[in-house]
């Protein structure tokens, strides 16, 4: 596979995002405000020496800062533009190119997010600074790159999921509603609202792949997952990813046969 088209698409989208630097700075609020807001809630619940499902106040605060960074920087809905393009016929512009549509959109998606990832780090560092009495650093340094590595694979997984949902526009004409609804559900299932392991029916939530985009990398960071468990989890993640990729390819092929290339 030639990488140049995708690297260029990534670069171009980073340039486009940087043109709107106001948006990038405004994004800081997504990383800053939720952990600060939930801090007061969890301080009331977990004040003193109390703990819930193994989370004391420090662990919970750290969970929210780290998870919020991961979840807010993951595009579970891929890009609702994809569904709109199918509907209004702009997809034609992409079908004419000698490159994979999925690949180009994935590259653009990552390219568009990179400035947010960097700005988000500043935001997360700021909130960690504000709540420094409670914020925990991992005891083993390898946990940070390992958590980031799992999260990046989770980003690919989440993008592919969102991409598949957008492809439903080949059949439904407009999938934006489904995509946005599924986006909200995915944030929950990634552990963006509450740690999944303290929820009822946790076996179900932990069976789903969305946890890899938030909850699971944070568990690595917090030291709540041992090194020995990681190969099995990586296998599971890659299995999900492969399933999604095969599904994406199949739906794309079937959908193209229905494409009507509206307009023009």
């Amino acid at each position, binding site marked *: 596979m030639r990488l*140049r088209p995708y690297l260029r*698409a990534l670069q*171009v989208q980073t*340039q486009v995002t940087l043109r709107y630097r106001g948006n990038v700075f405004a994004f800081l609020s997504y990383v800053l405000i939720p952990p600060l807001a939930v801090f007061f809630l969890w301080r009331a619940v977990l004040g003193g020496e109390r703990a819930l499902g193994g989370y004391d106040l420090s662990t919970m605060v750290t969970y929210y800062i780290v998870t919020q960074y991961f979840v807010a920087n993951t595009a579970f809905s891929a890009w609702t533009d994809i569904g709109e393009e199918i509907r209004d016929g702009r997809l*034609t512009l992409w079908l*004419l190119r000698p490159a994979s549509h999925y690949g180009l959109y994935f590259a653009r998606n990552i390219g568009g997010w990179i400035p947010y990832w960097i700005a988000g780090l500043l935001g997360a560092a700021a909130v960690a600074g504000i709540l420094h009495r409670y914020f925990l650093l991992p005891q083993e340094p390898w946990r940070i790159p390992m958590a980031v590595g799992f999260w990046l694979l989770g980003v690919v997984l989440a993008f592919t999921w969102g991409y598949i949902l957008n492809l439903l526009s080949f059949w439904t004409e407009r999938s934006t509603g489904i995509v946005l609804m599924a986006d909200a559900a995915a944030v929950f299932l990634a552990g963006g609202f509450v740690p999944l392991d303290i929820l009822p029916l946790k076996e179900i939530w932990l069976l789903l792949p969305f946890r890899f985009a938030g909850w699971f990398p944070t568990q690595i960071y917090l030291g709540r997952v041992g090194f020995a468990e990681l190969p099995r989890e990586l296998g599971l993640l890659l299995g999900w990813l492969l399933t999604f990729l095969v599904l994406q390819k199949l739906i794309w092929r079937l959908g193209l046969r229905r494409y*009507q290339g509206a307009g*023009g």
Partner: protein
Amino acid sequence: MGEIVVYVKDLRKVYRRALGAAGLSGAAKGLFKRQVEEVTALKGVSFEVREGEILGYIGPNGAGKTTTLKILAGVLFPTAGEVRVLGYVPWRRQRAFLKGISFVMSGRGLLEEITWDLPVLDGFLLIKDLYGLSDREFQSALGELVDLFELSELLKAPLRQLSHGQRARVELAAALLWRPRLLLLDEPTLGLDLMSQAALRGFVREYVKRTGAACIVTSHYTRDIEDLADRVLLLDHGEFVAEGSPQELVRKLSGMRRLRVAFEREVAAEELEALGEVVELDGAQAVFRVSAGQAKELVQALFARFPIHDFTLEEPDLEEALRIYFEEAG
């Protein structure tokens, strides 16, 4: 003539179109039951296009022109028929096929989609990498196209700050960067001023001449077709109704001529209408529509009754021939 670039045989395309009743109640009913109708866009058309040839592909709205181009570009699957473009089956969308064609749609371009806020050159660099051009190939093609389209002062400007005409030039240049062997142009001059239209036609002619590429152009501006096309196919309701050079097409579609007469004094409309079909009358100037066989008779009758300063017998242009044809076809 060169090799066959486009081969189409018995091409059919049937769409399914969802119907909706008007109004709120219609929308509510549509939630539960949706009616679908089948529309036949192409009824089995066959044609070929060769290297170095510009084919005018014309017809009224809904005739099936854009559908044909989209099938040739590999965007749509046909319902039936055989199609080869550059030797490939288009809808398999193989890389070598996609690198050999370029499809320009009016008002739609990849650069506007992706690099709207970025300098024009960034869009060209994206095209370079999408099509796998080497630095040398890119520089050579870019230099040529910048000269041809007079783009040197636009390369650093953001696309969104260009005028419509400038953007059309940029998109056309972007569509030629990888030197496609087949150029599909769908209403390329739509929305452009007269100067830009003429310039764009000049660019296309020059490109085809220089590279020997084949080109299919659809346009509602018959001037585009008259200026560009070596051969024209007229499509109506999904089938061909005429074929030939623009001049042949005019003759086939309309046996009518225009007789322009300059009288030495003003003439009343009633006096002229008694002799033939008056299309225009402005003081001492009149235009008659007359069949080729009747022209001589009408001229003699006019000379017998009026003092005449001058007269000319004109063939209708393509636009008028098409108007007459479709009026008569109902």
